[in-house]
């Protein structure tokens, strides 16, 4: 017979977002980015083609480049300016430096770049959140950031 115990909450622990919340927010962002990237990468040339007959090559290439850069720009600007992505807005989490200050331009850019470049490692590093007292992932430890609840 297995008894179900309520989860043990550590003091001050709740103000940081845990593994599930962060993955859910990331999933929401991924879905929105997928839709937006497809719309930019394929929708714009298709729209042009429906009006003019066929889209020029430069437009197709430009749309593909924009679609590729969209995730980087999205995460960079989201973490740099408000500190949260749309997924973070839904789940009420915000990225900050460990001292509570907003993430700067360089740090936000590095976080976005590394996260997209090494996505599998980035995701694997999320496991560390269940062990860290401030629920920091590997990349948070590396970049000196935390993900707080708001």
């Amino acid at each position, binding site marked *: 017979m297995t008894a179900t115990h309520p*989860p043990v909450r550590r003091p001050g622990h709740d103000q940081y977002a*845990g593994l*599930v*919340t962060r993955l*859910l927010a990331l999933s929401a962002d991924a879905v929105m980015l997928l839709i937006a990237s497809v719309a930019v990468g394929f929708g714009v040339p298709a729209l042009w083609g429906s009006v003019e007959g066929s889209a020029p090559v430069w437009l197709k290439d430009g749309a593909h480049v924009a679609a590729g850069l969209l995730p980087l720009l999205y995460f960079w600007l989201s973490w740099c300016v408000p500190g949260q992505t749309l997924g973070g807005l839904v*789940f009420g989490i915000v990225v900050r430096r460990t001292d509570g200050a907003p993430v700067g331009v360089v740090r936000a850019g590095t976080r976005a770049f590394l996260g997209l470049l090494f996505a599998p490692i980035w995701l694997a590093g999320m496991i560390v959140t*269940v062990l860290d007292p401030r629920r920091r992932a590997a990349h948070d430890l590396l970049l000196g950031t935390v993900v707080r*609840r708001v």
Partner: protein
Amino acid sequence: MQREDSGDETPPARATRLLAAGLGAALQAVEVLTEFGAEAARVVIDRSRATAEEADRRYHQAAERGDLLIRGVAEKVAGGADRVAGTAAAWADRLIVRRVAESMKPYLIEELVPEVVDGVLPKIRADVVPVVIEDLADDERIQDLVAAQSMDLLSRGVAEARHASADADDRVEAVVRRLLRRRGPEE
């Protein structure tokens, strides 16, 4: 000389004088009487006028009093009649109308009202409902209400998602810690 004049006065002359004196006295008397009569007439007229004015004033006072009295009586009579009518109507309602209505209720419910509803409902559906829906849709208060409800629903959903995810965070961490504690001694 005077004595001579008075002594020498002849009888006809004396008579004339007496006549003149009498005439003068008579005229004087007439004048006095005339003035007296005129004064008396003036007094009588003044008093008559005063009496007439007094009579007029009294008449108006009496009319006013009478009017007030009649009005008060009329109001009392009307109030009494109203109360009597109310009591009678209540009595009639209690004893007659309700009994009639009670006796008619089965007929109304089972036959008349369904017929009326069946007859009216298609017309209401066709003519009234679209207009009402259009009015409601155009009403800014309804639009604000719908928007507020949507926002409320959205914020509730978001709050629930946040709560559930926070709970899941704690549960996942509890499971991982338990697993690590179990494996610890074996390793």
